[in-house]
């Protein structure tokens, strides 16, 4: 496999790209809030793919 085949060199991944990781975490948090907001809108609340049905809730809000 590649890992065994070729040597793994050291590279300061976190030290050079920490702003991009911070940006990624921030967008993940923002999109998470956007998703939960849109999920509970009246258009998608009764959609069968809603994760709340998987957790056992049965009532059609």
């Amino acid at each position, binding site marked *: 496999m590649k890992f065994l085949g070729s040597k*793994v060199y050291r*590279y300061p*991944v976190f030290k050079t790209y920490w702003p991009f990781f911070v940006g990624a975490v921030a967008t*993940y948090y923002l999109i*998470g809030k956007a*998703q939960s907001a*849109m999920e509970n809108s009246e258009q998608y609340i009764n959609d069968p793919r*809603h994760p709340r049905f998987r957790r056992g809730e049965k009532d059609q809000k």
Partner: protein
Amino acid sequence: MPQLIPFFFLNQLFYGFLTLFILLILVSKIILPYILKLNIVRSIIVKF
């Protein structure tokens, strides 16, 4: 638009960023150094 269905927002982001992170680690630690070493060896061999 099936892209704007809210149930898969986080799912797309999670797997997308996960793949990009794995690729970043792979490229920066294994692939680019290998090509760099190849170029160095080639430049040394040409001098002989």
